[in-house]
């Protein structure tokens, strides 16, 4: 795949030069095979299910407890508050897992476990929070179509990656 050359002239210090070298290195790594990406997706679904299932059960038990208990502070556990807490915790977790981790660490837990890294297709940089959110939204809105596109392309890039100008590279293991 053709990559645009990086602008090395504007480098102000050694750390920048090394970061650019690292980004170029990521770009030269092979694209992640579809099978590994699917495996990382399944792993992510398992982890997300475990957390959401656990916290939902906990809140469900709290709700039953609040209905049966005579404790003086039980009014804090009213259905409105518990419902709000449920949505808040779940949204916070999903934001951290699917958006923040991609922008901060270069991938979700599943990606990182299997040695994948989500980067900008042009510069090799990790995504900003905004890019990470837009990539997730593209992914959610195109889901199966995105998979079909990935299966039909020789480089294995999915539709939401193409739309958000990102690419997933396999950063561990030999090329």
């Amino acid at each position: 795949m053709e990559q645009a050359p990086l602008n090395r002239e504007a480098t102000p210090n050694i750390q920048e030069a090394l970061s650019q070298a690292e980004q170029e290195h990521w770009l030269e790594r092979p694209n992640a095979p579809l099978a590994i990406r699917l495996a990382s997706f399944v792993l992510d679904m398992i982890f997300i299910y475990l957390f959401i299932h656990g916290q939902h059960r906990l809140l469900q038990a709290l709700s039953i407890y609040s209905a049966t208990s005579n404790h003086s502070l039980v009014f804090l556990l009213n259905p409105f508050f518990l419902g709000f807490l449920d949505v808040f915790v779940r949204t916070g977790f999903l934001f951290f897992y699917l958006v923040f981790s991609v922008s901060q660490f270069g991938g979700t837990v599943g990606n990182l476990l299997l040695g994948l890294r989500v980067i900008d297709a042009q510069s090799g940089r990790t995504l900003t929070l905004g890019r990470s959110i837009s990539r997730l939204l593209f992914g959610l809105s195109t889901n199966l179509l995105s998979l079909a596109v990935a299966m039909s392309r020789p480089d294995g890039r999915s539709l939401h990656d193409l739309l958000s100008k990102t690419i997933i590279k396999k950063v561990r293991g030999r090329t």
Partner: protein
Amino acid sequence: MILLVPTSPEVPRFHRPTWSVSWIVAILLIFCYVQFYPIVQADQDYIDRFQELKEDGHLKDSAAEARYLSQRPLLSLSISPKSWSVERALFSNFIHGGALHLILNLIGVIAGVRICTTFIPFLCTLSIFIIGGSLGLLSSIWITTAGGGDWVPHLGASAGLFALMGTYYVYNFRFRTSYFFWFPSKHGHISLKTSWFFFLDVILLELLLSTAQLLPSSFDGVDHIAHVGGFVAGCVLALSLRAIQRWPSMLQTRGEFLYWTTFLGEKLKSSGFDPVQATFVGWMELLKINFFNDQLKSKLARHLANHSASFSDEQIKAAMRFFGPTFIRLFPADMASLIQALNQNGQSLPPDWLKRIPYDNIIRIAQSLATSKENEGTILSLVLSYQRAHQSNKKLSQRLEVLIKQMEKITPNRLQASGE
């Protein structure tokens, strides 16, 4: 469909646990299941009869129901919140309510016993399984809120299994675990940090579910509190055992520990009374036994960095063999301080080591060095040495040339750094 199954701690082949001892516990569990199956069956019939009596109106109040349930046959073998004894708590670990319950626990127990024997003798493993499991079950009957479950038997090997899990985390928390993975196009082994899965297994899976069980309404037939209790008991027992054994925190396997306690003293005597050389010999000997031990490698790297002038090029070369790509990715700061110290003393990096280190490792070390402006010369020297070692790789060499030119613009001291 994918699989990711922990198989053993990441250790050399000859340290890997064997299956043989875990079958002893498995056979014990199967024997107990077969031996006491009539009592389990009688208990099932007893409960069916209880439902019939309740529907027919023969059991008029809760006191009558409690009187009837207190005579459950299974309570002669296992414990419940209203009826327990230490002997029955110990025995409950070997009793199962059905074939599926037994099979699921057998898989876990076989794997757990096998994996724990990498660190501790079989009898210690078995003791932790029984004592930790019993404490887990007892904690469950003491903590569970009073209610409809007063006469429900708490049994099964799962609390003991969680005690073994706790033992494994105590001994291997700072090291890695080898997982077997399988998905349609590929399969093999992958090593991941044990601490990552500690958070996934224990925090995500069990703590949330057991907190829910603390409240009066139970959602499933699984005793999550016994699991957490067993896990905590296993951790405490393993920590106590480690303290009694005086197990140093940087040792991973039992083989290293036995060598440390039995043979290392003699070996060190032969290296004389120089503490710097004796420490070097000690870490090197242990690394020869387990070359996956990153804690030892970290200690060795720091030791070399602190006393680099005391070691010959041959010793440096021998030590650098242990600093592979994974170690550098996990401990770039240790490698950076070692390379800085070697550079300061005018000692060169072994070309063999540079040849087998991937490019991203060099970038990581350089990034770690770049936190201080004083190290710019060392970084340049490192990249130059790396380029020299990879001259045959044209593409990499060109890329490094670009990086060197870039760095030269920032730091105009190439000649000084390379010592040319």
